[in-house]
């Protein structure tokens, strides 16, 4: 016998055409969901004998049914959960028939349901909604249907369980079927198949039952074996998020990734969505030899006809049907973190293979899943679903989730805890002219910076009126210029004479003022300049948003601190005096709140420092960063 066996490639390959279906089961605690899954696994493929032995033992200890085997116990994995008699997470089960292999995501029907269901649904192509025939549709059924629809599942089985307990009544079944059809009408499902069944006794699970002669449809297993669910991704335009650049030597440069949608073939024209550069697919390289084409779902390696700048995170796409490329978009979020969402908080956004800093800039409303109505909201707590606006620090390529489940999906990662805080689904771009695609830039920000022999930076001075921002900013710019640096000063008061002349001093006006200055500072950075900003910018959320526009480490938030009494005493522009006389209102520090920076790069106490000393400290810090 040889030490190592390379089995011969078998010419009579078994199961050679077997396909796969991933589905989700949802139902309330007592609907018999776990029993149904146990029954499906048992009837489809047979339980392993040692698991049955263990189950028999467990049924005696923990069982809640009088059956010899409590199928539900098969599905509860972890010790602690088993003792409490609950499942608290998504569990994955596997079974197969000769035609199909199945992956079942089992999610609990109680609290945390939204988070767990969203997780299970994100990778499922079909959902089984379980209803107790005696109870009919309940709140949870509606809730589950709404979440499943939101997550983009288009194929539904309404499993009307415990049909034996309503004497196999056709009238009862039809009543439930009709009620669901009425409710689900706005949920845009492509197929809804209702099946009367008994998970406990096996009627219409693996085989059509004699006891429901009035039912002409398939048994559950037969339907799962034949339903077609994978047409959407194949018909969508090509999207190929570049995952990793393969460069084993100087010669070869391959772009690896999974075809998210559509199909890619050798010779196809493609566009790099972000840069607008177009080229053609030269080869589709694989371990088993080059491929002529690859459909959605295949993980492949592409080489391109021209040398174009492509990195991880870029999306290669069909040039005739391009994705949106924008920084601002509307999205639905399923909030998954214990810490609620609040506008202005910064996250890492992962979409496709790109990860960029992003801010939830506005929360518009939450979805009441029981009524499918949207209710105005200013925050999102755990398990809430809400419509929000997202502002990413860089342009990203995306599609709306309803058009593409791969390129319209994203997650938000909390930057401090690193937890996955939300699942997101893009609704639409919020930028004007979203069909106007960017021209390929020949001169890049990096090139401009290189030309100026410096690293661009934004030095952002925030503080009360009269704290000394403008004075310090002027000295800083002089000193940097003396050192041969190329600079620009953005003073809030000056900008309000022109660019921001249309804005008021209420909270909304101040936010917009800061947003515009942030955008200008970003343009200055793109031009390769070091800009010094002197702006009251009273709210942390606005400053955070401005920071998010720039790459990590290119934004220095500096707090120019002085007691309000001192500011009032200095009053270089006479603002406090005017406010006291009622000539102006909304003065920060007098009438309006000021939020000091949470994590400033530097604090300048101008009660103790001269303007010159303060400027020296700023310059010292700037020189470390450029």
């Amino acid at each position, binding site marked *: 016998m040889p030490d*190592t066996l390379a089995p011969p490639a*078998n010419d009579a390959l078994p*199961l050679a055409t077997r*396909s796969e279906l991933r589905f989700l089961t949802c139902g309330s605690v007592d609907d018999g969901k776990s029993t149904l899954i146990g029954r499906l696994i048992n009837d489809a493929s047979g339980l392993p004998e040692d698991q049955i032995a263990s189950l028999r033992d467990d049924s005696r200890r923990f069982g809640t049914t009088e059956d010899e085997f409590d199928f539900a116990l098969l599905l509860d994995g972890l*010790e*602690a959960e088993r003792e409490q008699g609950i499942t608290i997470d*998504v569990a*994955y089960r596997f079974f197969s028939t000769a035609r199909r292999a199945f992956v079942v995501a089992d999610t609990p029907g109680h609290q945390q349901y939204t988070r767990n269901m969203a997780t299970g649904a994100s990778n499922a192509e079909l959902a089984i909604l379980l209803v107790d025939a005696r109870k009919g549709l309940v709140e949870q059924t509606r809730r589950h249907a709404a979440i499943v629809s939101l997550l983009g599942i288009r194929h539904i089985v309404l499993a009307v369980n415990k049909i034996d307990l309503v004497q196999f009544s056709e009238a009862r079944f039809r009543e439930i079927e009709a009620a669901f059809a009425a409710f689900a009408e706005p949920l845009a499902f492509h197929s809804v198949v209702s099946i009367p069944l008994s998970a406990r006794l096996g009627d219409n699970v693996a085989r059509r039952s004699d006891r429901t002669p009035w039912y002409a449809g398939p048994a559950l297993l037969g339907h799962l074996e034949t339903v077609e669910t994978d047409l959407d991704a194949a018909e969508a335009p090509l999207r190929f998020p570049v995952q990793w650049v393969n460069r*084993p030597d100087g010669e070869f440069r391959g772009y690896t990734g999974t075809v998210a949608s559509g199909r890619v073939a050798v010779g196809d024209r493609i566009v790099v969505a972000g840069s607008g550069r177009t080229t053609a697919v030269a080869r589709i390289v694989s371990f088993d030899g080059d491929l002529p084409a690859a459909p959605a779902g295949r*993980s492949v390696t592409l080489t391109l006809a021209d040398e174009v700048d492509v990195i991880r995170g870029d999306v290669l796409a069909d040039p005739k049907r391009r994705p949106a490329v924008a920084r601002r978009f509307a999205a639905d979020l399923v909030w998954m973190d214990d810490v609620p969402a609040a506008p202005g908080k910064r996250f890492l956004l992962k979409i496709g293979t790109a990860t960029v800093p992003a801010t939830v800039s506005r929360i518009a409303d939450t979805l009441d899943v029981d009524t499918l109505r949207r209710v105005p909201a200013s925050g999102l707590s755990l398990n809430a679903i809400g419509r929000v606006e997202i502002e990413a620090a860089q342009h990203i390529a995306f599609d709306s989730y309803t058009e593409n489940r791969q390129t319209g999906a994203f997650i938000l990662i909390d930057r401090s805890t690193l937890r996955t805080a939300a699942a997101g689904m893009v609704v639409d771009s919020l930028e004007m002219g979203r069909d106007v695609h960017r021209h390929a830039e020949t001169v890049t920000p990096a090139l401009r910076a290189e030309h100026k022999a410096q690293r661009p930076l934004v030095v952002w001075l925030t503080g009360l009126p009269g704290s000394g921002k403008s004075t310090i900013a002027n000295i800083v710019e002089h000193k940097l210029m003396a050192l041969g640096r190329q600079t620009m000063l953005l003073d809030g008061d000056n900008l309000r004479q022109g660019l921001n002349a249309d804005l008021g001093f209420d909270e909304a006006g101040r936010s917009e003022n800061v947003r515009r200055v942030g955008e200008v500072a970003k343009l200055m950075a793109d031009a390769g300049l070091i800009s010094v900003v002197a702006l009251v910018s009273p709210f942390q959320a606005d400053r955070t948003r401005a920071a998010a526009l720039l790459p990590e480490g290119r934004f220095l938030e500096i707090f120019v601190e002085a007691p309000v009494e001192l500011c009032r005493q200095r009053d270089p522009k006479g603002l406090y005096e005017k406010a006291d006389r009622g000539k102006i209102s909304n003065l920060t520090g007098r009438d309006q709140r000021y939020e000091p920076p949470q994590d400033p790069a530097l604090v300048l106490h101008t009660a103790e420092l001269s303007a010159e000393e303060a400027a020296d400290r700023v310059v010292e810090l700037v020189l470390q960063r450029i």
Partner: protein
Amino acid sequence: MSPPPAAQAAKQETSLSLPTPLPGGRSGLSPHLQRLEDEAIHILREVVAEFAKPVMLYSVGKDSSVMLHLARKAFFPARPPFPFLHIASGWDFRALIEHRDRMAAEYGLDLIVHTNEEAARSGINPFETETGEYSRLMLTEALKAALDAHGFDAAFGGGRRDEEKARAKERIFSHRAAGHVWDPRNQRPELWRLFNTRLAPGDTMRVFPLSNWTELDVWTYIQAEAIPIVPLYLAAERWVVERDGNLIAVDDERMRFLDGETTVKRQVRFRTLGCWPLTGAIKSAATDVGGVIAELLDSRLSERQGRLVDAALQASMERKKREGYF
């Protein structure tokens, strides 16, 4: 319990089916296996793109053999851009070590072998040491020490969700806090293909590219792709001892016999390859991979049944995972 009809049907198809050319698919994988392969390759690449220092755990078993094959595919024409780590207990089957070294040489792998030498020197062995303690020291502790010594931030493992109930809820990207602690209540939700790979200092990630594979998938893939495996997986006449209903192979002269035990020759194969004194063989006539698949379709014994390590503890997997075993 009567034989389930679907399994019978599947068996029938095994013996009857003819090769079916697949539209567009040159490799002859079924759509199901193709999807599993694509998913695993995506995961492998994601780790290489997002982590600083990944490693692949290479136990030389059938799952590891599939992972090695997938790694060669994922990074082709480059070699897999990470080392392979074998935790050797000193009680590994000889044929397994030979296979390991052959693969490493043939494919030019960066192979790291690590053993808990200190425990071995102190006399820890599979005959006298309590089984749970033995596996903790020789497998779990050895693994943690090796990961720490090299500073790996992500480690691929061959674990599958179908193996055992505690694994059914395991993530593909399984987050481990400092000290390799696995907290089943504090794992990150996994949505779409968007894996959260962020780590705090001291944290690590275990990654399971074969999460959604079943034992049958592994075998049919090995067959379809002609992946080399350790011959112990195939039936042959081997010297064994019958002990507590298990057939223990006598792999070298260190075997300790109990009173009245004798070696007998049996045609057996192994479903998993652990330390040889703790791994039960099963009687089998499957001398090729096709035979193993046929027996598997017929079998109603789940895979880990032959492993004494697991029988030692009820709900043992969860406890071992908490300690840092895969």
